[in-house]
């Protein structure tokens, strides 16, 4: 395998669920790559498909009656085409996942240590004693104090932060090459969140694993990710390096996200700029550009034409799915950045109005 080959390459992944109300297009043709030892941040609101995309990577949507198409290439092997047994050998071994809610992802009846031992022995042929020693070592690695005693605690005896550490320990039990962390800190307090993020960064450095971090928190991705993919209504609408996403974003949805969060450094007098409306239903999605009903810069043709993710000229690695002209987009962002409201920016830039 060449050094250039990405660890994970997702090609035109689609995941659909049939429900009584119609077909849910949870993931609608997304492609991305994760390089070894790097961190990809997937950002989006609830219902944007970010979690389903990751669950599908691990084959966890199979039992839900999902129709999956496209390719998920992990070290060159297509995970979509693997049998359940083959996938089970990879899941928890080469690819591991940390879920949002640490309480409901640990079994309440079994001691933390027992669950860790099970995770180790699922993929390694070792004795119980060795696995237990490994469990203690893992708990120590993730910063649980007094691990040789705490290994015999039940999950309810752990605090929220400790449970999330235990989950991370379990995910690390077989030294995965890829760790998928789905909102790993959302349920935690800020000081504990800071501890967990620092832990993930340290473990990444020490073990050289790649991380896909899924979150709605732009602060978390800004600190953790090397690259960012912004998802909206089952699609990736923009992807770029972290610096570019925050410095020169090109998609109106990304602008909306950035302008709608208060920051510690921003001015208090400025009103936030919310994105109007609500995220669309994934059953009946808007025509054309899925974002057009909420986009302040939408043109009549945007209701018909479906934009594809296309490279931004002169910026390798930056892709955006937007029908506005590149120079118009840049001019609009310059206005927004200077603190103008969307309608003011629109007036100042003067987007050529199409005949309706």
């Amino acid at each position, binding site marked *: 395998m060449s050094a250039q080959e990405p660890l994970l390459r997702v090609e035109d992944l689609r995941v659909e669920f049939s429900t009584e109300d119609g077909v849910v297009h949870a993931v609608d043709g997304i492609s991305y790559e994760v390089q070894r030892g790097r961190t990809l941040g997937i950002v989006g*609101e*609830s219902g944007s498909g970010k979690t389903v995309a990751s669950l599908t990577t691990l084959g966890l949507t199979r039992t839900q009656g999902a129709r999956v198409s496209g390719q998920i290439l992990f070290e060159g092997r297509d995970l979509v085409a693997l049998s359940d047994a083959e996938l089970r050998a990879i899941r928890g071994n080469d690819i591991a996942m940390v879920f949002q809610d640490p309480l409901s992802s640990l079994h309440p009846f079994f001691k933390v240590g027992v669950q860790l031992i099970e995770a180790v022995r699922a993929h390694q042929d070792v004795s119980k004693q060795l696995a237990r020693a490994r469990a203690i070592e893992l708990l120590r690695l993730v910063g649980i*104090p007094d691990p040789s005693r705490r290994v015999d605690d039940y999950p309810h005896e752990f*605090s*929220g*932060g*400790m449970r999330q550490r235990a989950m991370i320990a379990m995910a690390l039990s077989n030294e995965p090459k890829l760790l998928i962390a789905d909102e790993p800190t959302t349920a935690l*307090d*800020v*000081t*504990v*969140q*800071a*501890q967990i*993020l*620092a832990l993930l960064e340290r473990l990444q450095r020490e073990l050289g694993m790649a991380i896909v971090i899924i979150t*709605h*928190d*732009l*602060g*978390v991705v*800004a*600190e953790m990710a090397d690259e960012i993919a912004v998802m909206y209504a089952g699609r990736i609408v923009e992807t770029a390096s*972290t*610096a570019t996403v*925050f*410095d020169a974003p090109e998609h109106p949805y990304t602008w*909306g*996200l*950035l*302008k*709608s*969060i*208060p*920051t*510690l*450094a*921003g001015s*208090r007098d400025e*009103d*936030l*700029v*919310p*994105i*109007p409306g*609500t*995220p669309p239903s994934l059953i009946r999605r808007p025509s054309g550009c899925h974002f057009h009903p909420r986009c302040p810069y939408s043109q009549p043709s945007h209701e018909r034409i479906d934009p594809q993710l296309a490279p931004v000229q002169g910026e390798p690695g930056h892709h955006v799915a937007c029908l506005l002209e590149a120079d118009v987009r840049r001019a609009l962002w310059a206005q927004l950045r200077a603190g103008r409201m969307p309608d003011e920016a629109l007036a100042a830039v003067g987007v050529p109005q199409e005949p309706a």
Partner: protein
Amino acid sequence: MSAAAGEPLVQVRGLVKHFPLTRGIVIQRKVGAVQAVDGVSFDVQRGETLGLVGETGCGKSTTARLIMRLLDATSGEIRFEGQDITHLKGAQLKAVRREMQMIFQDPYSSLNPRKTIGSIIGEPFAIHGLEQGKGERRRAVQELMETVGLNPEHYNRYPHEFSGGQRQRIGVARALALKPKLLIADEPVSALDVSIQAQVLNLLRDMQRRLGLTLVFIAHDLSVVRHMCDRVAVMYLGRIVEIGPGDALYDFPRHPYTGALLSAVPVADPAARRNERQLLSGDVPSPANPPQACRFHTRCPKAQERCSIDDPPLQDKGTGTRAACHFPLSSEEVAEIGVRSAR
């Protein structure tokens, strides 16, 4: 009761709430107490927004519920417009409750799913016998719906037909129905998506400007609190550890816990990515068995022997805030942990 100009709307003095811990099923013995709120004093001035921040279990929601009289205080005093409301009952309590309203965190569980929006928002009128005529009440409710940005035509719809952000607007409309003087918002946006959060925050700010409301805003998100609040109180294990004007507190935190909180907030700006993030060790201790003296000393990077013996009072530290600390942060230390003003 005169509404003297300088008099705070709410005065809280030495407020304590202990929830007893019992053992035994038939014969219950008290074996201890969760010290949810333990000696909290502060004022809320008319027209201001006071933020209460802190981590899970610090007592911020309990404090709000005590002010609302949804819980009875173990000891201490709550004054509303100068009147002691700590032990009010019956008609007197009902009269005071008209003046203060609350918005809850979860817009899904705080609305009765079997009632229409019209009757949910109109309920405060029914309780207090206002706007009795059918047409009258409908008009009043629809006016409220319009004010908070809901379509008045949706009067007869049910909560499940609305999104999270719209439901929170319903909660705001219900809270504003009686034109209260005090509005307490307990984590009003933490269950909402980012793009929707801003809609609700702007609505609250707008309502406050238009109606001259006094707002107590409870949140764990420090950026949101900074955006919304004039003054901020930081709570830790049932106590206020620092209180002061937002700018002073965020620019120059004096209590090491405030500093650690600010240092822990992830910054949505990769250019400002800090190397030195101050990490607190361990978790918040149990409020059933809090540490002696300064409750933060077990996790405090600056703790010395004195901190475990001598409880520090809330004192003016000369930089705008009052903090309960024997060894407050210096400006060099604030710079080290990478708080905003230091950049």
